[in-house]
């Protein structure tokens, strides 16, 4: 036939490479959702939160449940939910004559679980990805290579990197949830592991004033939808078109 061994080996090699590539591209990690997808969101009612000047309940609960280390060196700190002064959290809303109330009380900020997340677009391994079934922007700590591109791309500063081993900085380990190794990025995960057991996020549960409302935007009867339609709400940096899912009532 005129085909020699060299030619055959070349063709076999290229086919092998090509097929492998096609297989990898076609097989997908995530299960296809069979139910109607949800869009989980939060409304933070700062009117209720504002009164409690020194309250840290939501932050302590979240960081305790998720083994978030307490690192004193602010350069290496890790935080999933925290308080930030109004002018830092909402720079476009800030002006010289805002009310004393807004000026003096910090806002609670966390990952916004955007519908158009820039962190997901830039991740070179899809270690961070947006779950189709409920819109949560998840972290896969097994896959993260620690390149920190997601931290660079996030307009809200929601992400933290493990610059060193976290275990020495955790006072009391919650054994039901893993700690993270050094070299990976982490952030709020909307308590995906609690939602899987039909629980509400730790911060929502911990707030004594019930200032954090959590639910499904796709469900017209959910509390979040009712609160959103009854109140004026703002979101952080809307002009960047990330479509964040954390709303604030000031």
């Amino acid at each position, binding site marked *: 036939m005129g085909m020699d061994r060299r030619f055959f080996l070349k063709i076999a090699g290229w086919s092998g490479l090509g097929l492998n590539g096609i297989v990898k591209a076609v097989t997908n990690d995530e299960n296809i959702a069979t139910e109607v997808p949800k869009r989980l969101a939060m409304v933070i009612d700062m009117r209720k939160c504002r009164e409690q000047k020194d309250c840290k309940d939501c932050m302590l609960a979240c960081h305790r449940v998720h083994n978030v280390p307490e690192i004193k060196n602010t*350069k290496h700190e890790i935080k999933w939910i925290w308080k930030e002064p109004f002018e830092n959290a909402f720079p476009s809303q800030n002006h010289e004559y805002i009310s004393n109330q807004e000026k003096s009380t910090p806002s609670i900020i966390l990952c916004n679980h955007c519908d158009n997340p820039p962190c997901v677009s*830039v991740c*070179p391994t899809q270690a961070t990805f947006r779950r189709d079934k409920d819109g949560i922007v998840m972290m896969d700590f097994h896959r993260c290579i620690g390149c920190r591109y997601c931290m660079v791309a996030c307009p809200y*500063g929601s992400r933290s990197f493990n610059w060193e081993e976290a275990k020495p900085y955790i006072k009391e380990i919650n054994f039901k949830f893993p700690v993270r190794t050094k070299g*990976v990025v982490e952030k709020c995960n909307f308590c995906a592991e609690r939602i899987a057991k039909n629980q509400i996020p730790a911060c929502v549960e911990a707030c004594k004033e019930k200032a954090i409302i959590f639910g499904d935007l796709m469900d017209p009867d959910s509390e979040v939808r009712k609160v959103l339609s009854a109140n004026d709400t703002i979101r952080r940096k809307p002009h960047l078109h990330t479509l964040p899912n954390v709303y604030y009532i000031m």
Partner: protein
Amino acid sequence: MIEYALRGTKKYWTLIFTLLAVIVIGFVAYLYQLREGLSITGMSRDVSWGLYIAQFTFLVGVAASAVMVVLPYYLHNYKEFGKLTILGEFLAVSSVVMCGLFIFVDIGQPSRVLNIILYPSPSSVFFWDFASLGGYLLLNIIIGWKTLDSERKDIAPPKWIKPLIYISIPWAISIHTVTAFIYSGLGARSFWFTAIMAPRFLASAFAAGPALLILLTLIVRKVSNFDPGKAAIQTLAKIVTYAIIINVFFVLLEIFTVFYSGIEEHIQHFKYLFVGLHGKSNLVPFMWVSVVLAITAIILLINPRTRKRENLLIFACIAVFVSIWIEKGLGMVVTGFIPSPLDEITQYMPTFPEILITIGVYGIGLLVLSILYKIVISIREQKA
């Protein structure tokens, strides 16, 4: 042809062993970083990229600049560059090797680096950057090696080299455009979120790269009997001149847009760089040195009488290289993070281990460059 690199003068071996010593020191520092984590660097939650990524960004430009000798020779038959193309291609190889290494030492979980290949993510610019850099490395190794081998045997290079060379020209432009896209597509970072990122990258690359190439060629001329000729050096110098003028012009364009609009969010970064922001001014002295060097270089290069005098040309090339290294290798990356998305200022200064690792990687690049250039020199001296 590797055997040419295994035989050399005392000076050559001194160079090689010095570089090896530097590399070993850098490697030990890297082992320390592997054990402790990236906390040993000066990076922080706010400034999540530092010296390593900045060097990567700068060196992609140096790698791309090989096109500035390849294009005139192969597309426009500019015979004077005939002897220089191999030097440009091998400089590109050395630079891309360093780029890959700088990314590697910056990664938090290096054992997982293959995840980039196992889980390709075309939406991430990193994916395209690795693809284009990898391809460019292969192109330059193949083209350089084959053309040099053919020169050694006094035959014409094989026909299939020509299409590869033609591809390498737009490919060189693409590697630096893609690297610029890493930054210019991020709405979160107002310092980088500008379309002129890619043109600025290209302009600074075509200034710094050929400047370095001139210096390397003069060094080669000193240690061997290979002389590229005055015409080739002068043409390269003219390319550097135009490129550095365009680069400065682009920076001035940015400054106009930013300051005329009065948008504080954009102004803050430039204030930080040139006068300091809220008292924080780590980079200010560096930036002004960069400005002075650039202006001095332009004055020396634009005037043919000073450009033709070799010691002034050498000074101008060093000035161009250092000026752009400061601008891209120090200023550009870190300033994107200052102020942070929450309007906070966390400054960045590299730590000693970080600097050691950086020097170690440069050592590896210089080792690759020395070996490749030695092969070129030996072959040309043999033929002469």
